[in-house]
């Protein structure tokens, strides 16, 4: 261990290694974070970013390697210890209680027993000075995702950290909200605080980060100045080779094609106090086209998906029509039998049963649709046919796995997603509805899934994609509609759509939404 601690580096990591069973999640990672810099940690899903960060935040113990904090060797054994050192973290998935106020949530994480009123006052002052507007007395359940993130950031800042770790912070924000966040980060940097910024969005890394460390397969593959790189050169470092660009042939004759999926005046009351009501949604998806639905998470996309898929039935049978027939009163099985296929957002526990094998998970969505191929008329499961079909999908989608027919939970998120999408594509459905098709999927596989969705549409199917990833929607959609607070905007043809227009709609700027926009402002 050659020491070179001139004090300029706030954090130095040497040879940090973490092994899970046979997998080396982090392999001799070196990382230096200087005082007052925004340092990007780039890498695909599964590259080891989360594992590294968990070791820095004390929630995982490294197998070997050293961490220096202000030049001193330290062992971070718990998140509490990380906080004491001055490391704060804003997680991608918030840990907030919806039924409590923002200030109460903050108080829960500060175990110093100070009264709520003083915490609220401090939080208010802090939010004001950093340009993060937040009312500490509002209920979390009433707040937008962007506002919830502000609570997490303020909660982190209240502990006056020297290093702030942000895990994919913009994945839940509109472009405009992201801009505000960047201003805050630049402000923090000017105060001499350091930020470790985890992302796979190259444009924003280029925009705000001073240096970047790129991980691939658990190893550091390079340090660079992102401003001197191009998005594609960064992508090459992350992926290791060129990612094939998705090709979208122009859709022809769509205007005259028959709508295969029609949503007419679909409304739904909120099922729980914190779910979003759907208000008068209208949409046609024609044969041959891909329609994208953009929107910040939690604006009714999940509720909309459940209604279209038939997991929740409609009062009015005509509010969902598949291939020209009313389907609103039919169950998900009935809608599948009409030629529709569905891919939900949650993989484990919704799209797949975690403790069941892949072949059994094939049966999950296809037990009724493939005639008598998988299930005989006596209700007997044809295990050999199911197994063969599962293997066919595994090959077609290049699903990487450790056993011939493993449990769904044993696959990485991206590989399971490939299987779940492949399971439906294998049927060549007339209508395909996908929620977050490439969430957590590596770039190569994501390109594969996107291309497959476009090709399904061009072969005459109607494809509806709900996604929070605007880049993805611009890549594959023929038109993009925006869901905001349970309402759906008119689809904007891709030729007219811009990031700015869609971003404004995501923030609720549709004329019909103006009233609500004022409420939340």
């Amino acid at each position: 261990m050659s020491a070179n601690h001139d004090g300029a580096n706030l954090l130095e990591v040497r040879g940090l290694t973490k092994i899970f069973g046979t997998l080396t999640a982090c392999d001799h990672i070196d990382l230096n974070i200087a005082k007052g810099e925004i340092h990007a940690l780039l890498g695909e899903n599964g590259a080891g970013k989360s594992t590294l960060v968990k070791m820095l935040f004390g929630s995982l113990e490294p197998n070997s390697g050293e961490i220096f904090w202000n030049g001193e060797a330290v062992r971070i054994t718990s998140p509490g210890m990380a906080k004491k050192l001055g490391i704060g973290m804003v997680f991608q998935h918030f840990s907030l209680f919806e039924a409590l106020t923002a200030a109460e949530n903050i108080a829960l994480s500060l175990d110093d027993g100070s009264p709520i009123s003083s915490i609220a006052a401090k939080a208010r002052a802090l939010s004001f000075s950093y340009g993060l507007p937040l009312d500490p007395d509002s209920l979390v359940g009433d707040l937008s995702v962007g506002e919830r993130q502000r609570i997490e950031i303020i909660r982190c800042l209240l502990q006056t950290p020297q290093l702030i770790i942000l895990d994919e912070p913009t994945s839940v924000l509109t472009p405009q909200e992201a801009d505000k966040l960047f201003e805050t980060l630049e402000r923090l940097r000017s105060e001499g605080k350091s930020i470790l910024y985890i992302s796979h969005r190259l444009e924003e890394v280029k925009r705000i980060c001073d240096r970047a460390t790129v991980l691939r397969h658990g190893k550091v593959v390079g340090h660079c100045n992102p401003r001197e790189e191009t998005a594609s050169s960064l992508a090459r470092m992350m992926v290791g080779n060129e990612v094939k660009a998705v090709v979208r042939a122009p859709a022809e004759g769509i205007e005259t094609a028959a709508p295969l999926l029609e949503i007419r005046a679909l409304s739904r009351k909120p099922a729980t106090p914190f779910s979003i009501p759907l208000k008068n949604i209208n949409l046609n998806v024609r044969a041959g086209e891909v329609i994208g639905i953009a929107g910040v998470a939690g604006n009714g996309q999940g509720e909309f998906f459940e209604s279209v898929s038939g997991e929740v039935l409609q009062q009015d049978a005509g509010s969902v029509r598949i291939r020209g027939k009313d389907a609103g009163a039919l169950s998900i099985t009935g809608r599948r039998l009409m030629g529709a296929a569905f891919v939900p957002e949650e993989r484990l526990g919704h799209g797949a049963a975690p403790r069941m094998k892949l072949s059994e998970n094939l049966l999950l969505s296809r037990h009724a649709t493939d005639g008598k191929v998988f299930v005989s008329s006596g209700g007997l499961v044809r295990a050999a046919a199911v197994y063969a079909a599962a293997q066919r999908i595994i090959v077609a989608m290049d699903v990487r796995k450790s056993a011939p027919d493993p449990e769904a939970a044993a696959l990485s998120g991206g590989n399971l997603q490939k299987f779940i999408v492949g399971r439906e594509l294998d049927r060549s459905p007339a209508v395909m509805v996908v929620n977050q098709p490439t969430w957590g999927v590596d770039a190569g596989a994501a390109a594969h899934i996107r291309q497959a969705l476009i090709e399904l549409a061009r072969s005459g199917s109607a494809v509806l994609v709900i996604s929070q990833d605007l880049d993805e929607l611009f890549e594959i959609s023929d038109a993009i509609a925006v869901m905001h607070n349970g309402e759906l905007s008119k689809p904007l043809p891709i030729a007219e759509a811009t990031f700015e227009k869609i971003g404004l709609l995501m923030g609720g700027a549709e004329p019909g939404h103006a009233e609500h926009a004022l409420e939340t402002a």
Partner: protein
Amino acid sequence: MMRLELVKRPQRSMLFSALSPFIAFGLTIIAGAILFALLGVNPLNAFRIYFIEPVSQVWQLHELAIKAAPLILIAVGLSVCYKANVWNIGAEGQFILGGIFGSAIPVLFPGFEGPLVLPLMLLFGMVGGAAYAAIPALLKTRFGTNEILTSLMLVYVAQFFLDWLVRGPWRDPQGHGFPQTIQFNDSAVLPELMPDAGRANWGFVFALIAAVLVWLLMSRLLKGFEVRVLGSSPRAGRFAGFGLNRMVFFAFLLSGALAGLAGISEVSGAIGQLQPVISPGYGFTAIIVAFLGRLNPLGIVAAGLVLALTYLGGEAVQSALGISDKVARVFQGMLLFFVLGCDTLIHYRIRLVGMALTKGAAKLEAAPKLKEAR
């Protein structure tokens, strides 16, 4: 200083899934030995009387089959419930109602004889058990009540109903005031399998057939897949298009029918008439059988024989050593306790952590530890 730590396994361990009942049985034996020693009895002698003597002759094996039959029948049905995440604790009541429904034919129509009588009785028994099980299913699906409470409380209702029947309307007028019905006529009695060798009746065959059929259902049929999906991840089950409420009814009706069949088989085969008490707690012991048998119908056959032995052993130590036959209940309870405890090893492994080693490389090189930070 050492402490134990549970470390979650990445995959469930097949080894410990199979081994867990055996470890539990071993621990029960050890705890039982301590129990006998504290009672002032030589444990070795007690175990010989408890576990070996009751099965050392052919007629005794028949007694074992008589006790095992209702346990297996009920537990096989319960295994479907528990796999579906439906908690039917009221099999004892469904057993009693099965006995009452099936007995209605020989009690109310004592002159009705012939080959039709028995099949009708068995059918009635199944209908009675299923109908009684439908009550908690209906309450759960309509009003969201907790089926553990409702099914359990209905057991006591069933017990008092039977008690009232045999003391009131169904009492044998020629029975010298004893609280019991008339003896069933010959065509209403479940025949013995091998009358020359012992008393075992067709109930044991029903139990074996039920075990095989339910095993086929669970492992080969779409319906069994449905049970497993809805039980393990209900949301994925809804995505598959399987109805949760339909499944609650299916599980309750199936287990109720099997418990009812066990009830009428017991009354018609082993007892021959209705009495105030027709079960030594079969419906509750079957819960232990179901878990000891890994909720697998074939494992349940083996577990049913083991638990039947605890009944016979309890009677044996009572007569030979003068120990209360409640010792059987103690053994059954310990067995369930240990098997549930050992099941932890399926999902977790145990690691010894040295508390003194707080610094240095020793801890860094310890086995990987995954905290719940995801």
